[in-house]
């Protein structure tokens, strides 16, 4: 079992409310319990085969994928439910109770993030943290302090191991 919670060092703080470090199995259980989970992928998965495979594997578990940046290119022909969207627009829509989601069935209640630039996701999560009730989980290589729950800072190989455990428990 991977302990993904050890290193939660940050460079600067945002404020009082900071993410709780989470292990992959716990994160997976929370996603499994959610009614409408959404995986938001960033472009860092495009040139990282290890991450791309795991993103597809999460999609194959039936989780809707919001492919931001140009990460949609990873999902073509992979038989997963992925839609392109700009992440800043997505963050705006996620905070809107009238948004019907990608399938017209309504918005989402648990947002999972993978494959983003750290500084960029920090900002997106800062908006969601302060202006929405959404639960967010960062399964990134870096500790994302503005998420509700986040993996800690991980070495690349440990990160992949943690993702595998996360997928196993979905």
């Amino acid at each position, binding site marked *: 079992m991977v302990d993904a919670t050890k290193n939660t*060092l940050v*460079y600067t*703080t*945002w*404020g*009082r*409310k900071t993410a709780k470090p989470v292990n992959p199995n716990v994160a997976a259980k929370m996603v499994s319990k959610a009614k409408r989970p959404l995986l938001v992928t*960033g*472009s860092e998965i495009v040139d990282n085969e290890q991450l791309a495979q795991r993103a597809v594997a999460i999609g194959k578990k039936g989780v809707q994928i919001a492919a*931001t*940046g*140009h990460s*949609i*290119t990873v999902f*073509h022909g992979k038989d997963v439910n992925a*839609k*392109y969207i*700009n*992440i*800043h*627009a997505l*963050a*705006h*829509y996620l905070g*809107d109770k*009238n*948004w*019907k989601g990608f399938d017209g069935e309504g918005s989402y209640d648990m947002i999972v993030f993978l494959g*983003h*630039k*750290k*500084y*960029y996701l920090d*900002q*997106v999560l*800062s*908006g969601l*943290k*302060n*202006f929405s009730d959404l639960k967010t989980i960062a399964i990134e290589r*870096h500790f994302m302090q503005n998420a509700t729950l986040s993996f800690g*800072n991980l070495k690349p190989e440990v990160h992949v191991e943690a993702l595998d455990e996360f997928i196993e428990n979905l």
Partner: protein
Amino acid sequence: MSKISTGRFSIEDLENVQITIGKIVGAIEKKVEEEGDMGPTPKPGVSGLRDWDHQVLSRYQPVYTPMCDQCCYCTFGKCDLGGNKEGACGINLGAHQSREFLLRVITGAAAHSGHGRHLLHYLIERYGRDHPLDLGPSNLLAPNVQMVTGIKPKTLGDLEEAIEYVEEQLTQLLATVHMGQEGAAVDFESKAMHGGMLDHVGMEISDLAQVSCLGMPKSDPDAPLAEIGMGCIDATKPVLLVIGHNVAGVANMIDYMHENKLSDKIELGGLCCTAIDMIRYQMDTGGKPYAKVVGTLAKELKMIRSGIPDVIVVDEQCVRADVLDEAKRLSIPVITTNEKIMYGLRNRSKDNADTIIEDLASGKEAGALILDLDLVGEVAPRLALKVAPMRKEKGIKALPNDEELAALAAKCVHCGACELVCPNNLEIMDAMKACVEGDLTKFEILHDHCVACGRCDQDCPKDIPVLDVIEKASQKVISQEKGVVRSGRGQISDPEIRQEGVNLVMGTTPGIIALVGCSNYPEGTKDLYRLAEEMLKRNYIMVTSGCSAMDLGMYKDEEGKTLYERYPAKFLGGNLINVGSCVSNSHISGTAIKVAAIFAQRNITGNYEEIADYVMNRIGAVGVAWGAYSQKAVAIGTGCNRLGIPVVVGPHGSKYRRALIGKPYEEEHWKLYDARNGETLPIPASPEFLLTTVETVEELMPMLAKNCIRPSDNNMGRMIKLTHYIELSQKYLGQMPDDWHRFVRTETDLPLAKREELLKILEKEHGWEIDWKRKKIISGPKMKSDVSAQPTNLKRLCKGEC
């Protein structure tokens, strides 16, 4: 009584007496009144355009991404506003973020306008108030100034009233940042828009003054090319490095060097917009600039650490705060020339040149503050000549040698501290490991992604000078950094607007993409080149300025040509236009205003709202500040936004704290009036944002094509724009865009080559009714195609409303 006018007058019988009348109170207003074309909002106050802002903000809603959940403005606090709570003064996080955004905007606007005030003051002293504005073949000289203030300046002196207005308004805006007071985010947003608008006036004043007085190219598509890149600096000569944004001091150095035949004896290089402007200096009659551009702010610390400069002269704005400390370590004297940067140095403005040179060359003093720009002109070149051999003799050592490099890399314990603090979280540990094994390629790649902030140095527990390691390991690629950049050509001229305006408004030129702003790119400098090349091939008009203009010149094709050598610089589709430095960005907004004035014959004088409405609905222009980092960049962007021009920033731009994004799924926000009859006119959701961030250029390119779509496009124009949107989406995202059908009004809007295929999709996937015999759309589109429609947001402009 005879009429008094401005100008210089001699009085008969009084020898040596000349009277100068600079300004007559109310004269400009009176002239405009006589001409009868003053619009409703000359010199608007803070609330003067509030209705327009509120209307715009109801469609493009603020999206806040705080950099900090707390407020520490006053001694009630600090207050935790997390979760949008209220602080002790009653402000909530949303309003506080909009206040923070406003503060950034007016800081940027103040930087440009302070620059403008300094230049104007200096140039009026030198050339006189009645020195004419000379900007090339244009009658509309100052579109931003005229639209905002109602003033139609003809001389340097006329610009003073406009800059006074800007200064007064900026003070009023700054006052609103004070604790408490405003509680509505939407009104802070309106104030930010006001600050952005003022910024374009301030910038325009700066550039009009310098173009008119300093012999800069005047709407010249053949403005000369200049060398650019760290690799083009000839370090065998004494090297004089200038950094900043205000060319006044450098102009004097160039004059001194020319007059004393030193131009070929001293290497003059520059960073940031001072560099861009010094290659414009005295280039209005042709020639080749001998000054060279080193590059952007991202090269600043690397250039200093290289030890190559013998003297550094700084002026204002994008200049690192530690230039003096860094230079001191390498015995490089620093001259500061502007009150905005004084570094604690002794004021030597009244001393003689010989004494200053002696004190600096001997190392008695590390630098000098010299506010007399004539003195700077003499001291800097002479000092470079004197110091260069002394520094060589001393054997000043800057970067580590090969053995030291290997030893430093070996010292790394791979703790990850540098990666944590790196703004781009670059993989420095991997590069260190490779370096130990003699492989420098990872560092060479890092070099282009590194913005040279130096934070890694500060945090290394082993005291490894990480930035020096990156720079030393990348010497091979740095030596090859040689390109060319076209000197800034200034405004787009009136005749050019007459020629191209119709294509822009009808959409047959697919759009204007303005590549502006700084060098805080997410994935290195080449993305900018890729973007520009793609859009130029597709016949977009590419306009550029400042640091973006520099970085575009750094890459060459297989034949060794840069984009500036491959693409002409006229205001036509498929042309690449460098307007100039940071303050020349006003010519980009000015171009949009000119289209309204010249092509559409709209009265722009004191008529902001109507012109912004025109620009928003008819001119397919998008600004891209891919590496925006400064407050000035966000001020420029916000000024564009108020004028109806959407702006995209790179992912670092999310740290500006707020975006303005529409919701295409809320149909009630995508409607206008038809000015012919006041009827409601459904419009496409484009631009779908006024300010947003994008993660990669692959995502950016189709987004740009989409957001150039405007309600006024004719069928040919819409077809061209849709073609690019679909093709770019397929090329970079590997798919048809999900929303392409929303922009189709009739079958003639469809890309010709794919018309049948797309009609089938419309029928099958969207339930549209198609007449297959005539290949016509019978029903489905939510908008009608009507080229005579007059789309407007403003009810008052509709027939029968006034």
